[in-house]
Every structure is written in C-alpha cells, then in structure tokens.
C-alpha cells in the first residue's frame, strides 16, 4: 500500500503572530481513513482547510490528487467532498432542496434521493434545516460531502456535540464511505473516535505533527507496557510472576497483584503461568494502553486539559 493521494510537506500557516500550523508533513494513502488528532487549537482545522483549498499555507507544498488545492481549486473541488467544522446552512432551507442544489453544481452527481435514503434522511427531505437535530444536520453535511461521488472526503470534527448513540451511527457511515473505495481525512479531538475509526492517525499538538502511525502501532511504540491485575491468596504467585520473561515489576496490594511488563505476550504468559502452577485466582483483568495514554506520554498532558 503505497499510493498516496495526499502529500503534505513542510506547511506552515500563521495568523498574525500566532503560528497555527508549523512545519506539518504527512501522506495519506488511497482508501484509508486518516485522522488528524489533537486537542482544540492544535492546528487540525487549519491544516484541513489548507488541504481543501480554502486557505493558502504561508510555506510548504500540498498535493491532493496531484493538484495544488489553492491554485487548482476549481479542478479539485469537483473531486473532493467537504464537511466543515460548525458549518450551518440557511435556516429555512429544506433538506431535499439542499441536496438537489448541491447535485446541480456537479457534472455527474449521485442520485440525491438514493443518498438521502442511505443516510436515513428521506423522511426529513421537506424539513427546514433549523428543525434538524445535531445528528441529522451532520448526516446532511455528510450527504452534501458525498453528492459528487468524490475521491477524497474531508470531515472536520464530525461528531462534536453528538450523543454517544448518534456518534456511533456516524462512525458506521464513515466506514461505509471507506468501503466504497474513497479516502477519508478527518479531524477529531476524541481519542476513542480516532482509535475506533482511523486506519492511521497523525497526532498534532501546537501546530506540529508529533507522530504518524496506526493507532495500534502508536500504542506499541510509545506505550508498550502491559498491565495484568490478578487477585489471589497464593503467596508464592508473586515470585512465579516475577520469573516470567519481560515482567518488570509485580506490586502486591493485599490479595491483588499488579504485573507490569513490556512483552506483548504478557497476558498469555500470565494465564499460562496461573494454569501451570495451579494458582487459585479470584479476579483477573488487564489494562491495555490506548491512544489517550500515547498522547499523555508524548505531550505530558491529557488531551482533555
């Protein structure tokens, strides 16, 4: 898989004295869901809007589908789909009118009726934009982003402000976009969203890309330690766990033992050890590090701060 549809190299964008994006570089492969992940104000949206051709970077180069987004804006706009952060439409615009109007702007749009059906908006087609719920508005914006059957879809903070159920429904829709062979670039400040949805993520903070990889790869590289907690009354267990390969520490707290190690097979090793030595276990759980932990490790702070 080496077929980049987007190449970003060394872009920088400042608003007055505030540097929003500073020397950002990454590539996005065809057919993947790529996430720009970081806290609010990290420079995700500015980066995204440079990719969409809505802003010109001060420095650096961008190629989307082989085109410079700002200079070849008109040629690119018909091949990409865009959902903007916190965008609105005319309050009294009907859902059906919006998709039909958007469809009229492109040479070969998809069928607006079919699209509304797929996004579950068919019964809302005569409703005014102002009467839609947050989730319905976002589904409409997804519909508008897909109306021209684009090759690349940009989704900026798609699920912000939605309840967990609506959020999950939107995730399924985004996976559906990938299944149609399209490339998706999204921004999110939700680590869980990035972890569940993205094939690869770029972690951004203070306008810089800190690292790029699959969520699993980032966790393996930056938070390789595994933690297994075993509750047992067996006093000999602690020594047996310490002898396992890759185990760095076993902290006993009453009957609960917390086993820490860097061996990716730690969990299996502990289970085997328990069964081989016939250790009586009353509770057992593992803690797997997440992107949240990666962010904390890389930046020294929690993304929610």
């Amino acid at each position, binding site marked *: 898989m080496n077929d980049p549809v987007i190449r970003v190299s060394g872009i920088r964008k400042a608003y007055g004295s505030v540097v929003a994006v500073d020397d950002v570089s990454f590539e996005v492969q065809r057919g993947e869901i790529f996430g720009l992940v970081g806290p609010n104000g990290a420079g995700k949206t500015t980066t995204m809007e440079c990719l*969409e051709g*809505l802003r010109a970077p001060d420095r650096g180069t961008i190629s989307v589908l082989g085109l410079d987004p700002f200079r070849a804006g*008109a040629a690119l*706009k*018909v091949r990409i789909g*865009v959902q*903007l952060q*916190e*965008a*609105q*439409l*005319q*309050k*009294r*615009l009907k859902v059906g*009118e919006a998709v039909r*109007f*958007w469809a*009229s*702007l*492109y040479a070969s749009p998809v069928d607006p009726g079919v699209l509304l059906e797929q996004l579950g908006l068919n019964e809302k087609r005569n409703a*005014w934009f102002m009467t839609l719920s947050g989730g319905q508005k976002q589904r409409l914006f997804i519909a508008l982003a897909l109306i021209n059957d684009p090759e690349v879809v940009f989704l900026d903070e798609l699920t912000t402000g939605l309840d967990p159920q609506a959020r999950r429904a939107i995730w399924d829709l985004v996976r559906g976009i990938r299944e149609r062979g399209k490339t998706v670039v999204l921004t999110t400040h939700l680590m869980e969203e990035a972890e569940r949805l993205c094939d690869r993520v770029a972690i951004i903070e203070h306008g810089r890309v800190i690292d790029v990889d699959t969520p699993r790869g980032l966790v393996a590289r930056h938070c390789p330690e595994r933690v297994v907690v075993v509750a047992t009354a067996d006093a000999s267990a602690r020594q047996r766990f310490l002898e396992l390969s890759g185990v760095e520490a076993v902290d006993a707290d009453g009957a609960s033992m917390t086993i820490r190690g860097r061996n990716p097979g730690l969990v299996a090793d502990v289970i085997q050890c328990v069964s081989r030595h016939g250790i009586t276990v009353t509770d057992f759980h593992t803690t797997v590090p997440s992107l949240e932990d990666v962010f904390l490790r890389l930046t020294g702070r929690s993304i929610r701060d």
Partner: protein
Amino acid sequence: MNGLWQLTWLEIKIFAREPLGLFGTIGVPVLVFVVLGRLMRGAGPASPEAAFVKTGLPVLAAILMATSAVVSLVTIIAIYREGGILKRLRATPLHPATILTAHVLVKLLFTAVTLALLLVAGRRYYAPDTPGEMLRFAAALLFSTCGILSVGFLIASVVPTARFAQPLAGVIFYPMIALSGLFFPIALLPPWLQMMARVMPMTYAVSLLQGVWRGDPIASHLWDVAAIALFGALFTALASRFFKWE
C-alpha cells in the same frame, strides 16, 4: 456563473419563508406610501402637502424600498458569514461572485415586486401614467438600488457580527436619506454637509428618481447615472478587496 439561477431561486424561496423579512422589504414601503397618501389627500391642490404627494411621496417610497433591500442584504450576508454558510458555499464549485450575485438578484426582484404593488396601491392618487414612463421609473429605481447595494456590500465586508449589521446599516443609510435632497434642497445645508451629500450615491439616486418621476428624459440626468455607476464601481471594488468569507 454555473449555479446562479438555482441559487437565486433557492434564496428567493428561503427569503419568502421568513414572514418578518418579507414584511420589512415589501410591506413597509407600501404601508408608508398608502398611509401618508391618505393622510394628505384632504389638502388643497395648491398646498405643500399636495405637492409632496405628487412628487415627494413616490420617490420617498422608492428610496425606502431600495434602502430596506440594502439593509436586508447586509444583514443576510452577516448572518451567512457568522453561520459559516458563506464558507460552506465557497467549498463548492460555485464561483465566489456567483454566491453574492444571487443575493443581488433576489433583492432586485423583491424591489421590482414592491414597486409593482406600489403602482397598484397608487392608482387612486395618480393619473395612470403611460406604461413607458413607469418602465423608465422602474429601470431608474433598479439601477439606483444596484448603486446603493454596493455601499451595502462595503458595510457587509467590514461588519463584524450579524448583531451589528442591522443597526450599523441603519445608522449609515438613514442619514444618507435625510441628506439626499429628498426633504429639503441640498443647497440649504451647511457646506460640510453639502460635501457629504455629494459623495453619497443616495443623493444622485434621489435626483435621478425625482427627475424621471417629473417626466424628464433620462438624457438630462446622465450626470446622476454616471455618479451612481462610478460610486457603484468604486464601492464594489473596495468591497471585493475587503470582503471576508468567515
């Protein structure tokens, strides 16, 4: 200009769905016209009231029409910018100029509709004019509206939020109407106010409309036409230089 008619039609429908905006644009000038006309109907034929009804009132109503169209445009642009609607439209293949032109067309259309309503309402006070003269008046009004809309665009370019748009537009346009020569001759103003009146397109619009209403040929108002066109081009150029999409 791909998408211009579709967007214009869409904006017409959206505007018509907002009862208050529709009343402000169409209702207010018609109401002012009918109420003032009735109040002054009893005056003797040689009184100043009768003279006002004969020539002042139609031009006042026309200027109100153009102004409410412009204030409404400034407000809509500000709301669209604040809500990110302009930005969302700019992410489509629509040409940026198309997005703004659609709004101008909507305003011109509603101005034309209001004028038609005024003609119906004014049949009682005015001898039926020849259709040719009314068409000339309509053309002069639409042309003047375009000129004044350019000032609206300049205001819309710099107004920070939708909340400020309407009061700011009012503060700018109502003094422009007061100084335009509609209520008293400009020559009676102190010199510095005369200067101000001369650099406002509203003044030339009033002069043009008054002349056309009196039955002057347009050729005798070429200076007004040229001034409106010049200011229109100047303010449009400034607006496009400073226009912010978000």
